[in-house]
């Protein structure tokens, strides 16, 4: 099946209030061309699920987020995402559901394998339990009788991930050191879109990387989008590193509204192709 599509077509399927997951980790292999497309759209009141990086920072800055479900929001080389920091300190994210990093994985995994919850100790005894009043406990039915957190399935309406290579059928390949939780995001979602640096013939996968790099199979994907530079300014190892200079400029705009407006006009209020041209010309 030919699943090739575009960012515009994928984002056109989103509706206000949907729950959307973004793969990657911090400022690493994030589906940023999709994030930029959402920023240009009128979408609002989204529930965003992410091991957050600039995806979360930007969506919060644009007021797209009603509820944020996250393990952290970081730019890696800058430990705390500055736009997220500002949004938190201004109290502008209506519903904040901060989880332990492992709990987020557990919620995605539960949704992926169609269980209502998975048990864990993580969260007990901490303010995670107060921050997430929906969390309930479950008692082990065995002799230990232990009381555990029943981490509920984090079911997503739509998931977006970015890979280095893909074929038009929806098989995906990462060429960096870590696959993160991208497969779980896809498996937890009703509708799944994969952007990639390059669409290749299926027969060419193994000349790009080993068998083990084929983490995403076509049962996990509904739409494939060729998006060279699509993870910019986050890193996409195998193809490019993080654009630290660009990221620093982005980060600095959190403290300076004038600089933010200039950054937004220069890079975000324009189509993806123009964004990529501007980045290439830097």
């Amino acid at each position, binding site marked *: 099946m030919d699943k090739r599509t575009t960012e515009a077509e994928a984002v056109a399927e989103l509706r206000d209030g949907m729950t959307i997951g973004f793969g990657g*980790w911090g400022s690493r292999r994030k589906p940023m061309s999709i994030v930029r497309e959402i920023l240009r759209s009128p979408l609002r009141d989204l529930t965003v699920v992410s091991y957050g990086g600039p995806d979360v920072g930007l969506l919060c800055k644009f007021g797209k987020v009603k509820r944020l479900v*996250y*393990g*952290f*929001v*970081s730019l890696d080389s800058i*430990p*705390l995402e500055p736009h*997220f*920091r500002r949004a*938190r*300190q*201004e*109290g502008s994210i209506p519903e*904040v559901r*901060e*989880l*332990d*990093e*492992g*709990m987020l*994985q557990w919620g995605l995994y539960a949704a992926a394998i169609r269980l209502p919850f998975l048990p*864990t*100790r*993580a*969260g*007990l*005894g*901490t*303010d*995670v339990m*107060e*921050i997430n009043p929906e969390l309930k406990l479950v008692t082990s039915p065995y002799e*230990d*009788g*232990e*009381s*555990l957190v029943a981490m509920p399935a984090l079911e997503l309406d739509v998931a977006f991930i970015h890979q280095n290579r893909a074929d038009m059928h929806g098989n995906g390949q990462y060429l960096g*050191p*870590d*696959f*993160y*939780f991208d497969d779980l995001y896809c498996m937890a979602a009703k509708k799944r879109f994969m952007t990639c640096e390059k669409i290749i013939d299926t027969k060419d996968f193994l000349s790009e990387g080993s068998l083990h790099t084929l983490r995403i199979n076509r049962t996990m994907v509904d739409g494939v989008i060729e998006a060279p530079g699509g993870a910019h300014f986050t890193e996409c190892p195998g193809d490019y590193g993080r654009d630290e200079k660009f990221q620093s400029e982005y980060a600095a705009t959190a403290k300076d509204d004038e600089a933010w407006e200039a950054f937004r006009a220069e890079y975000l209020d324009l189509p993806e192709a123009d964004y990529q041209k501007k980045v290439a010309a830097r």
Partner: protein
Amino acid sequence: MSDVTRAEVCTVAVAEAFRGAGEILVSCFGTTPAVGARLARLTFEPDILMTDGICSLLGNVDPVSGEKGEPVIEGWVPFRSIFDLLWGGRRHVMMIASQIDRYGNQNFACIGEHAKPKAQLLGMRGAPGNTLSHRTSYWIPNHSPGVFVEKVDVVSGVGYDRAAQLGPQTAKHHDIHRVISNLGVFDFETPDHRMRLASVHPGVSVEEVVEKTGFELAIGDAVAETRLPSPEELQLIREAIDPKGFINKEVRS
């Protein structure tokens, strides 16, 4: 040995926290812990595992400053494997605490109310799961009453009083081992697991520690002095692990 810096004393105290670790993953946040863990591995704890900070396990000990050289990679631990490993318990993490109380409840999530913090810090990250899954220690480069507090604003890492409330099943892997600051070493070896001053670093008085701690510490009749690095340890720190002396920027003498 009069030229030993405070940071070097802290480094050895960190290494000592990992004594007896055996074959487990050691994860560190902060410069001094990174140097101290490497020191432990190069001396009395050769079997500990460390990552390159991304997702390779390093078969060699890479320096914290100076020329890195070619890494020897002994394993692959993507985040998926790290999460399994840490819930499985074969790990000792040394995290930072922005606030810590007498029972070792830790906060590095935010200052003020979580709903609208005065200062958003790192967030919960993995602290809730870490502290119930395996041994945890804390590194505090700037000992002050604002860090050692009566009550933390938000609990990200579980302390002993909260662990006790969870009961023996849930808390069976809870183990806050050491708190190391620029002034001294602290443990919880008291009947009700209140924080105890285990040793003061050379040149620091018990009075200074008390003055800069926002809660009442357990203090024995005779407080030991943190040991100095051996000549071999000093050489390893200065020549092999941290030739540029980054630790001395984190902790001033």
